[in-house]
């Protein structure tokens, strides 16, 4: 199982390093969203932490959707997903590898977003930002799990790329609320203990969608 997992992840990262398509798209989209948010709400003000947290999660949700869909679309476009399905690799392992790749792309986008967030919203590099890391990782894991599963479904229909955000956003709403509330509190200087309830909600979301993806991937990826 680990051989197949490692081989698929290495192959996807090699393809990304070679083309850079996802990285460029993710960073550009994140930048665009943050610029729009800054122009709409302004960089300062009393509610700076809340606006910055909202901008972070809006950028992540769209960049994450894009990253996860590209990892699967590339397999479908070249027909190579059939090569994987005909191989001795378990479909659940293929899902785990695609989830890992989506998470890596999302983490990459997250770092770019955080840097841009500090610059655009005049935030300070410090403890508040470091405390965002667990919140971000929990949110990114759930979003990657959800996007990977739904990208498998939407990839089977025409214009599936357009359909993906429509499917993802409503389902991700509980985690989105938890993530943005926790991020706003942390950026306002509160401790991780103060946002424990939101973190538990993010953990529950992750367990639910990672398990669902692991169990359902086999059924949604196979052809009729």
């Amino acid at each position, binding site marked *: 199982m680990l*051989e*197949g997992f*490692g*081989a*698929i992840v290495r*192959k996807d990262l*090699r*393809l990304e390093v*070679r*083309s850079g398509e996802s990285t460029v798209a993710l960073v550009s989209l994140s930048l665009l969203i943050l610029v729009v948010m800054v122009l709409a709400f302004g960089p300062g003000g009393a509610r700076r932490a809340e606006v910055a947290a909202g901008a972070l999660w809006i950028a992540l949700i769209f960049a994450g959707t894009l990253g996860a869909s590209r990892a699967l679309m590339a397999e479908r476009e*070249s*027909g*190579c997903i*059939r*090569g*994987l*399905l*005909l*191989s*001795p*690799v*378990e*479909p659940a392992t293929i899902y785990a590898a695609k989830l890992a790749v989506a998470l890596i792309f999302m983490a990459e986008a997250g770092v770019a977003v955080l840097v841009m967030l500090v610059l655009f919203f005049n935030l300070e590099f410090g403890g508040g930002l470091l405390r965002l890391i667990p919140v971000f990782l929990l949110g990114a894991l759930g979003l990657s799990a959800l996007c990977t599963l739904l990208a498998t479904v939407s990839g089977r229909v025409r214009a599936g790329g357009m359909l993906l955000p429509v499917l993802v956003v409503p389902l991700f709403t509980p985690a989105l609320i938890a993530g943005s509330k926790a991020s706003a509190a942390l950026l306002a200087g509160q401790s991780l203990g103060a946002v424990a309830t939101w973190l538990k909600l993010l953990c529950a979301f992750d367990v639910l969608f990672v398990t669902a993806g692991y169990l359902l991937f086999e059924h949604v990826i*196979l*052809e*009729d």
Partner: protein
Amino acid sequence: MTDAVLQAYRISKFFGDRPVLHGINFAARSGQAAVVVGRNGVGKSTLIRVFCGLARPSAGRLLLFGEEPFRLAAPQFRRLGVLLHQTLLYPNLSAQENLEFYGEIYGVAEPAAHAAQWLARIGLQRVAGEPVSALSRGMEQRLAIARAMLADPDLILLDEPFAALDPDGVQMLAALIKEALARQAAVVFTAHAPLEIEGVDLGLFRLDSDGLKPFKEENRRRAIRSLLRRH
């Protein structure tokens, strides 16, 4: 019939209301080769996709290595080599990287060395570092054949493997099929017209709307003679 690695019982396949395959009965046995002939659009590619378990039959029963494909344990797919109409190769990876990747997921020992050996066998060692997107169609077909046969599978299903191959490529593929039969693999492939491989006793089947029927010996000779005359 314990040596049958693939058994199809009255397989039918519909796309919506449109029937594509109807009442297919077939068995592929170790050490035997069969070629399925049919006109364009008759369902040869669908037949291969159903036989390898990629597409689920609408009716009937299919057994791969004695199990229904959807119940077959993943490690058993190591015994299956499939060439589809699509090459299943990554255009942005090189020929060597593609074979290495498939070698890794098939659990081949020393995938890099194995890939290099296969590239030499199919005459592509000089383009080993080229991305697949830069290869000609014939070269891609050779590479796709190597990908399908990389792990020495027990059952080899090839969809129009001779398409796009030059005479050297045809010789190479014929040699690979003979090697596979010599190690008791079963080989099933499709073609537009009847053909022969020297030294191989090919079972010849015709696919049409009535199903999959063996060619009668007399018709088989006539079809091959007519094809040879045309070429």
